[in-house]
């Protein structure tokens, strides 16, 4: 056994570690996505669940239509400004713990349609995104790979302590305000709590 791990175990107690492992294993092995498609990527998402790629192998074919029973929201496609409030509301209505995969260029950044007046330039302006998959649309394998990335991420989460994920932290915010459709644009145009301005200028150093 690794030395660091031992110390960690000593600190947390084996009990918590076991529970944590079980908890993470349960969460990661049973991720039910929400039946939620937006655009082109939704077709690839459907293709992922179909015979050739079969997302069911991971126990994730249980697409729940109701957000109450879903764990994972796959933002599969362009989020328009008309749709964004609904997406945020649905995300809010999901039960914790919940994860978001931004599938495809449009969901991450507006993608090819980012020049449009009605296109939200990335869903992570309003809700926290766990995994981004680039691609337009990403191949089904890419979605499976993202799904595995998400599983890895869940595996790495602690049950207690500072590094614990948002849903285990009583202090962390649980509500993500729904933007309002204004006369010209969505208001506000981003949620500062999940989307702090990365940089002031547009140029990467």
């Amino acid at each position, binding site marked *: 056994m690794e030395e660091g791990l031992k110390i960690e175990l000593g600190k947390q107690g084996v009990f918590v570690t076991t529970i944590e492992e*079980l*908890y993470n*294993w*349960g*969460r*990661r*092995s*049973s*991720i*039910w996505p929400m*039946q939620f498609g937006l655009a082109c990527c939704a077709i690839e998402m459907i293709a992922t669940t*179909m*015979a*050739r790629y*079969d997302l*069911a*192998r*991971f*126990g994730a*074919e249980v697409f*729940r*239509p*109701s957000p*109450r*029973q879903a*764990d994972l929201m796959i933002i599969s496609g362009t989020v328009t400004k008309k749709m964004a409030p609904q997406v945020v509301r649905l995300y809010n*209505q999901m*039960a*914790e*713990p919940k994860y978001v995969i931004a599938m495809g260029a449009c969901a991450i950044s507006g993608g090819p349609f980012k020049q449009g007046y009605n296109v939200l330039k990335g869903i992570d302006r309003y809700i926290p995104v766990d995994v981004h998959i680039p691609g337009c649309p990403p191949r089904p394998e890419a979605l499976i790979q993202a799904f595995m990335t998400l599983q890895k991420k869940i595996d790495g989460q602690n049950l207690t302590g500072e590094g614990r994920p948002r*849903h285990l932290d009583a202090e962390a915010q649980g509500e993500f305000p729904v933007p309002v459709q204004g006369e010209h644009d969505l208001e506000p145009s981003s949620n500062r709590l999940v989307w702090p301005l990365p940089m002031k200028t547009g140029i990467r150093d």
Partner: protein
Amino acid sequence: MLETLDQVFVLLQHWLVGFLPAVLQPVAGVLLSVVVIIVLFPALFALTTVLERKGLGRIQNRIGPNRVGPFGILQPVADGIKSLTKEDIVPLSADAAVHFLAPVLLVVAVFMGFAVLPMGRNMVLVDMDAGLLFFFAMGASTELSVFMAGWSSRNKYSLLGAMRAVAQMISYEVVLLMSSVAVVMISGSLSLTKIVEAQNQYTWGLPHWYIFTPWGLAGFVMFAIAATAETNRSPFDLPEGESELVAGYHTEYSGFKFALFFLGEYLAMFSISGLGTTLFLGGWSAPFSFLGWVPSWIWFFSKLLLSICVFIWLRGTLPRLRQDQLMNFAWKFVLPMTLLNLMVTALWRFLGEGWERWVFCSAILMLAYVAMGRIGMRSGHIGPRRYRYAE
């Protein structure tokens, strides 16, 4: 030896109980049986969910869950842990108390049904004189819990789903009752144990299962249809018809409450399959007299699993009916057929032992089935079509 294997659970129970003082022995015996029921069927539920997901997968040319645990058999465990640790959401405007009670009531009502099912020779929790009536009385309470779930959520889809579910369940409950009456008429008892024993006889090595009689077959078909509808399984899964009603009456349920609904649905499937097995498929009796040495409980559970496989198969194949068609089907086709079947059953008894009763009863039922099917299709203006091509 084989006798021992057949009674292995009974003996095991006696042996275990034997360690206790004599006063406590009966109580402990009951407790033990109850624990077995409480553990066994949820375990079967877990198994069935994997079976269903893998079976559906195979039907659809794919593998199905195979990563969680060996061959994916730990999938339900993971689902359970996930559901257990999931946040429980109760909408603010919902009726919290009823919202909470509905899934619990469902599970309790469904569990109670298992009390009278004979799962093997001498393997029944309670052998009551009015066992069948008890079973239906318990089944009737599930409707109420479904209604409670839908109503208390205060969600339009839930309420609509619940109303549909209740309407559907009451309609098919009549059929269920009436098709069982036929069996009772011949076996002369409401006790399920006696009904099985009545079927546990062989002529030329073949069993006297009621499904092998004309009225029994018809009754079984009607019973199977009604059972599918009663458990809200495809093609009668309208209440949770997700294509229009999102998730039906449990739209607003999350976390383990939702899991309880899921559990309840599957347990209802087991209990109704168990009843069907008991009434028509000879319960725990062997299909051929020479297979009599195989322990009785194996037969019961294999028949149960077989009927569950049929449920899965149907689900993998059929689209779902519409509400009005479902109701019409229940009241205008299945119920008349079942009532007719009652008469035919009476006729069966009065026609004596000869071959005539086979011919007559089969002919009546067959004719009625074909005629009613024709009339139904024609009055609904449905049927195969021919198509023309331009030029």
